[in-house]
């Protein structure tokens, strides 16, 4: 079982706190409960610095809850996690300086232009004015969004709003980016363009945690993939490793085999 392998790796206490080590994120026995619903159930996971990690799972598997705990929006019920070496239980201020979060719902100020939205979040990160301008310009150019950014977000299509949603997450040039289903609702062309953009983050040596429903997206972008279901990590490895292990042609088949088997087994 993959879970056992991961748990064994973390048994050495020195592995837990890893500020200068190779891991950007360490999740240790993480549990998150909402009343009597267990959304995350004893999750153990390490994500390396500079890695693009795909977190997959069916609806309600606990992907967003995990990201919400890692980004400080939710407190763990049990266990903990370390982001950039800082504990989510005690060092949220430090963590927030390191991360950029692209939430699942496109959260933008509709009455502001695209550029104003991005610059606002640069200010909220306390970046110097000059750096905000430079970074905004470079992000807009990279995403081919410069012209659109002059218009108010109210007039954007769904895909454009999602693009803006992603750019806002990256204004602070975060070391660790949480992208929670960043391409949902985008048409195929916009999605491909966004994949390229997300791929470019890897070249910038950023740690990216990507949750997605599009299995081909995870397969195309991720260095490693973790599949969670019912709040538990049920598979972990590179897309190639997982395909080999489960004798599958693609990651989608792996996903269906693993999650389908759990349904059949009544887990």
């Amino acid at each position, binding site marked *: 079982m993959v879970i056992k392998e991961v748990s064994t790796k973390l048994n050495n206490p020195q592995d837990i706190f890893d500020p200068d080590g190779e891991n950007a994120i360490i999740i240790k026995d993480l549990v998150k409960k909402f009343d009597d619903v267990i959304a995350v159930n004893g999750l153990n996971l390490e994500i390396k610095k500079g890695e693009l990690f795909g977190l997959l799972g069916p609806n309600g598997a606990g992907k967003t809850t995990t990201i919400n705990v890692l980004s400080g929006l939710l407190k763990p019920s049990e266990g903990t996690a370390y982001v950039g070496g800082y504990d989510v239980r005690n060092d949220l201020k430090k963590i927030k300086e390191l991360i950029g979060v692209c939430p699942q719902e496109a959260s*933008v*100020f509709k*009455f502001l232009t695209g550029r104003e939205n991005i610059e606002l979040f640069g*200010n*909220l*990160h*306390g970046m110097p004015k000059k750096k905000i301008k430079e970074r905004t310009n470079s992000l807009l150019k990279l995403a081919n969004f410069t012209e659109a950014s002059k218009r108010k977000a109210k007039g954007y299509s769904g895909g454009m709003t999602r693009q803006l949603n992603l750019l806002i997450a990256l204004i*602070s040039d975060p070391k660790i980016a949480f992208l929670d289903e960043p391409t949902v609702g985008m048409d195929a062309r916009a999605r491909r363009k966004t994949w390229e953009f997300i791929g470019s983050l890897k070249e910038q040596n950023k740690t990216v945690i990507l949750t997605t429903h599009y299995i081909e997206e995870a397969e195309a972008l991720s260095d490693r993939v973790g599949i969670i279901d019912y709040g538990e990590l049920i598979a972990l490895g590179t897309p190639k490793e997982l395909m080999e292990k489960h004798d599958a042609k693609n990651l989608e088949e792996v996903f269906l085999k693993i999650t389908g088997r759990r349904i059949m087994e009544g887990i």
Partner: protein
Amino acid sequence: MNIQKILALVKVQLKKLIREPATLFLMILFPAMLTFFFGLGFVGIIPDPIGHPEVTQFDVMVPGLYAFVCIFIIMTVAMTFSEDRERGLLRRMNTTPLSSGEFMGSHVITNTFISVIQVVIVVGLSFLMGYKGDIGGLGIAFIFMIFLSVCSVGLGLITATIAKTPGAATGISFIFIMPQMFLGTYIIPPTGVTQVISMFLPSAYVTDGITMLFNGVPLTNPLIWIKLATVALISVAIVIVGIQLFKKYGNK
């Protein structure tokens, strides 16, 4: 406290005021229209023709109008917070290093600034419409209004904590708006019962204080300062309660 973050948020909230017609109407045009129509309707009515033939009904009502406009901040704050929460913007801002003090501070600053604009409009327009108050105490009147705005921000936060949607926030805000509007500003002539109730309404202290100031009561009169201190205490208490409640239960 990081001034850059606070100013960036103040700028956004002011842009909302200018760019969103509903907010612009409620915060700027509504007070202006209110003053205009009250002026039009009441400037010719003399409530006490024998005792004070020079005092019109409009003169009696104007201090209450100043308080009246600040009370509507409750609705705009409640709507703004509910909308931002519904759109996930509060959660998103919560993933940045912005502190809750900076966030709440920006709202207090913005709404205080807006209330100053509102009062300038209402003061200017009321004098144009024939109001004959003594403007010597205008500076202290502004301070009364600022405290009432702070109080309204607090009540707006309490409303947003209770309300689940912006629509509900609009409705629930009237629980706080109506008594303050009708019983605390003397738009309705005071009776024994309303005077007892108004002892618990910050707007009543503001209306009383401004009435005294505009009637030429000197600043040496301790009653003005007692009323100001009362409004200040109530406002600070309400805004603290509002912030704590919203932080604990409203930001979800």
